[in-house]
């Protein structure tokens, strides 16, 4: 299977275009696909058949939704072991999830909730991340989520991620749209956030569209093309931290595959300018 390298472009695998992907041996412009392991584990039938065929044609990256690394309940180790088996079965090297919580003392909430980013929480989180990395036999890569709630006295997000990566060796999945959305909603400096991120810990990038509400608040919806401002930010990321595999997320109002490929081409064209700047810097 082809390796996933910096500059490679990918899409999140969606049921809307699985069949189109399977019509040809490999679609030009798609270097890899991202899947949520939870949506495929212990699933048979047509879906499993599709995944098996997709896995024979494209390298896969796993992007989880349910790890809940930041909650305060005991780590769900049976679940993490199942993830390990799935990653092994499909020869998936990159396993990412979100720096968030999805569970409380009652149970799972099925969403990504922000956790308090305080220095005194770092050791606890680093310990849980190490546990996951031990079980999966892989680096855990964590994404900066879009968050619409904050806690008093938090560290800046970039500094928190950098400190966490330094303590436990986790990787960072930089979601460029989330960084933009958070900075706009919080009134913070997105460039300061980017500058705090440790380049060597960045494993891959996400980019997506968002929705602007009437009051100016931005919602990370994955339901629109990438906004120009986010494209420009992506170019800066590319220039600052260098190329990485880049994944376009589209989970709502999913257009036809050729439209998505057009969006991906547009992003890639903008990023090449950033790459030139990175090379010349």
């Amino acid at each position, binding site marked *: 299977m082809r390796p996933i390298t910096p500059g490679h472009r990918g899409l999140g695998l969606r049921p809307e275009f699985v069949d189109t992907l399977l019509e040809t041996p490999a679609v030009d412009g798609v270097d890899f696909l991202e899947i949520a392991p939870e949506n495929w584990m212990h699933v048979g039938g047509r879906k499993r058949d599709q995944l098996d065929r997709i896995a024979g044609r494209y390298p896969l990256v796993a992007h989880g939704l349910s790890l809940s690394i930041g909650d305060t309940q005991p780590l769900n180790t049976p679940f993490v072991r199942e993830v390990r088996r799935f990653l092994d079965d499909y020869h998936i090297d990159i396993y990412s999830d979100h720096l968030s919580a999805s569970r409380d003392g009652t149970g799972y909430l099925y969403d990504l*909730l922000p956790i308090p980013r305080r220095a005194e929480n770092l050791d606890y989180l680093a310990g849980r991340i190490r546990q996951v990395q031990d079980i999966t036999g892989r680096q855990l890569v964590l994404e900066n989520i879009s968050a619409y709630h904050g806690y008093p006295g938090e560290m800046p997000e970039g500094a928190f991620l950098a400190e966490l990566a330094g303590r436990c060796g986790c990787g960072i999945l930089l979601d460029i749209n989330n960084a933009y959305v958070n900075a706009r909603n919080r009134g913070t400096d997105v460039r300061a956030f980017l500058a705090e991120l440790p380049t060597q810990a960045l494993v891959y990038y996400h980019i997506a569209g968002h929705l602007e509400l009437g009051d100016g608040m931005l919602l990370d919806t994955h339901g629109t093309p990438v906004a120009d401002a986010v494209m420009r930010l992506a170019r800066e990321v590319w220039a600052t931290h260098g190329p990485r595999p880049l994944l376009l997320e589209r989970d709502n109002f999913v257009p036809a595959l050729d439209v998505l490929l057009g969006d991906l081409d547009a992003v890639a064209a903008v990023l090449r300018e950033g790459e030139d700047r990175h090379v010349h810097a």
Partner: protein
Amino acid sequence: MSTPDAGPPPLMAEELAAFCQDARRGRVRLYGQLLRENIAEALRSSFPLFVQRFGSVALEDAIDAFITLHPALRPQFHHIATEFVVFAQRGRLLSPRLTALLEYEWALLAAEIDPARVSPEGAAGAYIRLNPTARLVLLPFDPSAAAEPGVEGAGGDERPYALFRTADHRVLIQPLTFQDCLVVEQIRDAGAMLPETLTDLLVADLSPPDLQTSLAHGLACGLFCVTPEPIGEPS
């Protein structure tokens, strides 16, 4: 192997618990909405007939109660459907017929994604087994008319059906006769058996021609599979 050095810092646990509770109860408006939309979307996609029959206000109330009260144990988003069925059963939230409709759609979904492999038609083997994705259900309505209005309120006796996925991934619903039920139960309990053994076991209840008819029909539609092994094939 790393082990957690200690539990979470008390303030972190306290803040997170409070925030999650606020989100569950809708006191943090945006997160309250997001949680409810996620569940509603999962239910609309998994249980389209149930959602249609239940009504939007009742559904909103049920989702609200689910998020506020239900201790969901399964982390995967596609298990929201299962968690909701458990919640509805425990809470006796629904009328018996709506419960039956919900369980029926759950059984369809479960058969569709069951991880078991189904042997293709024409596979070699002397033993007969039940399709490993089969669910046997009693339904108080005709599933072929489940999409028609009023199914949740119509009268009628419960009748047995088998829901299962075929080797080419179609989900079928097969009405079962009394004779079919006898055959299915024998095969299911044994794991897999030779037709001769089945004939011997059912000799008091079924004539050989009736048994042959039931077996032939089950094999033709995919309810039964053949296997070379006496205790089923590995899934």
